[in-house]
């Protein structure tokens, strides 16, 4: 027994040190994103995927090519529902551009979440000679940088979602970012929870930059408003994105602390599991933030929740293709960093996004309504 405990302790000591050493809290970036949130987007109304927040423009006349274009896309993977919806949306946008005579050929490769595969995918695309432009959704930032710099020497490159450490791409497309997501959810909860109310924070796992920044921002907001989240370190609880574990954690809090007034989440996949713990305990629903997955939006509408859904917009997958066509047409585009607006779903616009026909993990902020094949292409049975 003693030996086992000692062994456990040793394992903990080895793993715990690096896991918590890194800091993701950047006050400058936090302030910048907070400002971007209040900025009015420019661009065509009702089409957020073509809008942008401030920033400069890029003249792309040197990339101009006549006729229809050959577009290549290296995808990091489709390993989670967000990427599945994104990839479906991107293919629909390609169909639109093909019908308009703008794209003649679209080649794509799925790196299945592996850096080495993505690097060789990019090399194969470059040597095929079948690409007028390369769109990349990088798997990881540092590993993909050399491959993308190599590609930049031959053809124009566009990156979106995760970035690279190079400024050679013509444009990098991204939504405001992790801090913004955290700010929107935490401000809403802070506003609606009664003074001295109990709040818990549910996080997927530590050490992932986008999730860490979401939490860092929420923590700032909670500190500003004098809210201390429950739990030993006031640092939230880790759910591993597992529904059963989420439910167990929330049920434990409800058993230990009674009614919980607010639940902050760093991602939406297990929001409905957290809500179920309240149902099963026979307690009042908390003020909660989720994401734009349909299962949460449906639960929100059905149970009249006090809720908000900050989003990491899927429509950026559309924007990447639109930008590719514009670059090859030689149009001036927002850049070199194209900041897309991040729309939040609130009580006021909930009805616009909720649909009980779409699959539970469909992301409502896909900008895909009205695209060819909607909604069947996104998983709705006829």
């Amino acid at each position, binding site marked *: 027994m003693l030996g086992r405990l000692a062994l456990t302790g040793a394992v903990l000591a080895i793993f715990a040190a690096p896991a918590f050493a890194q800091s993701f809290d950047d006050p400058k970036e936090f302030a910048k994103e907070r400002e971007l949130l209040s900025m009015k987007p420019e661009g065509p109304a009702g089409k957020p995927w073509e809008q942008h927040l401030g920033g400069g423009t890029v003249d792309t006349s040197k990339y101009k090519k006549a006729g229809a274009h050959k577009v290549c896309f290296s995808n990091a993977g489709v390993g989670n529902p967000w990427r599945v919806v994104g990839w479906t949306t991107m293919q629909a946008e390609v169909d639109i551009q093909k019908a308009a005579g703008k794209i003649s050929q679209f080649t794509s490769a799925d790196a299945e979440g592996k850096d080495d595969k993505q690097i060789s995918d990019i090399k194969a695309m470059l040597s095929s000679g079948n690409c007028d432009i390369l769109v990349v959704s990088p798997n990881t930032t540092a590993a993909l940088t050399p491959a993308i710099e190599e590609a930049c020497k031959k053809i124009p490159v566009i990156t979106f979602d995760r970035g690279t450490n190079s400024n050679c791409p013509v444009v990098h497309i991204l939504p405001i970012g992790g801090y913004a997501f955290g700010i929107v959810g935490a401000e809403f909860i802070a506003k609606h929870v009664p003074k001295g109310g109990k709040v818990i924070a549910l996080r997927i796992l530590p050490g992932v930059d986008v999730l860490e920044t979401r939490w860092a921002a929420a923590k700032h907001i909670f500190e500003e408003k004098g809210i201390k989240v429950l739990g030993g370190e006031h640092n939230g609880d*880790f759910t591993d994105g597992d529904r059963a574990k989420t439910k167990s954690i929330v049920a434990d809090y409800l058993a230990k602390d009674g009614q919980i007034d607010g639940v902050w989440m760093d991602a939406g996949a297990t929001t409905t599991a957290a809500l179920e713990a309240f149902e099963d305990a026979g307690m009042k629903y908390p003020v909660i933030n989720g994401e734009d997955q349909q299962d949460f939006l449906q639960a929100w509408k059905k149970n009249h929740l006090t809720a908000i859904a900050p989003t990491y917009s899927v429509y950026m997958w559309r924007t990447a293709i639109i930008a590719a066509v514009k670059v090859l047409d030689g149009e001036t585009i927002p850049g070199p960093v194209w900041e897309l607006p991040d729309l939040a779903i609130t009580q006021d616009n909930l009805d616009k996004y909720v649909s009980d026909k779409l*699959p539970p993990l469909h992301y409502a902020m896909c900008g895909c309504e009205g695209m060819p094949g909607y909604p069947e292409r996104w998983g709705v049975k006829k």
Partner: protein
Amino acid sequence: MTTATTTTPLRFDPLRIVRRIHPAYVALIILLIVVAFYNPNFLTPMGIMAFLRRSAALCIVSLGQMFVLVTGGFDLSVGSLITLTVMGSALMINNDPTLTWSTIAIVYAIGIASGLFNGIVVSYLKVPSIIATLGALLSLKGIALAWSGGSPQGYLPDNFRMFGRVTLRDIPIIQVLPISVIILVVVVALCAWLFYGTTFGRLTLIIGDNPRAAELAGARVRLVRITAFLVSALAAVTSGILLGGFAGPAQDVGDGYDLQAIAANVLGGTQLLGGKGSVAGVIAGSLTLTALFTVLNLIGLPKPLRDAVQGAILIAAVAYSMRRQRWGQ
């Protein structure tokens, strides 16, 4: 090995008494004290029932695994079968409560097919079970992902979810009674009867102890092995129904249950490579593992660390049970 008749001289040896108590029970008691320390409500009927409910799925899948382990095999496919049960049920039912019972029948049929397949491959094609069921793990998970397109589709209606979710209230003495605890009790009774009360149960031990001798004595070794895999698969489907009921469809719901079921068995004194095991030990092992996870949650350990700790404990537990065998327990 099953009837250990060692004659030991009568003398007082404290170390020997310590060694005689199975470590799973000691670990379980220590962990339960730690849980109670962190969560004072744990030692109430509600707290205990919530804990049993949380343990039910692991207990059931571990009991199934025990039948395979005591015959000298491994069943690594149970986690994938759990995932397939949950994802497949959600796809087939698609939120239509009238389809619940037929869907449950179909997922049990899938379980029977999977168990028979594992058993036949191991007994007739002579593929080592660790390889055969590793193959089944990949195939079943692949089927689940291909069928659903990689992310959960559809919902499970309330009459399906009730098995894992509903708790009966206002019960005398125990106050609350989750349906999953009732199912757990029934499964434990069935497994105890199968293991101790039937020829099949006794044969699993004999075959695990010495398959050649069992065969020469006229035991139908292949049939017993196939049945053991069948029991394991049916237990996994039952766990899947409870897990799907508890928290709804997810594509990673069964992940880790294969290793956890083996770990629970080892902790509970089941001998790897066969010949020894007990229903009470496996339950103690499963509860210990669940209590350990609860403690790791309460401390706030992230999953990678939990996996590391689980792996370390598995190795330590096997090493300890090997020592115990050498001590002649």
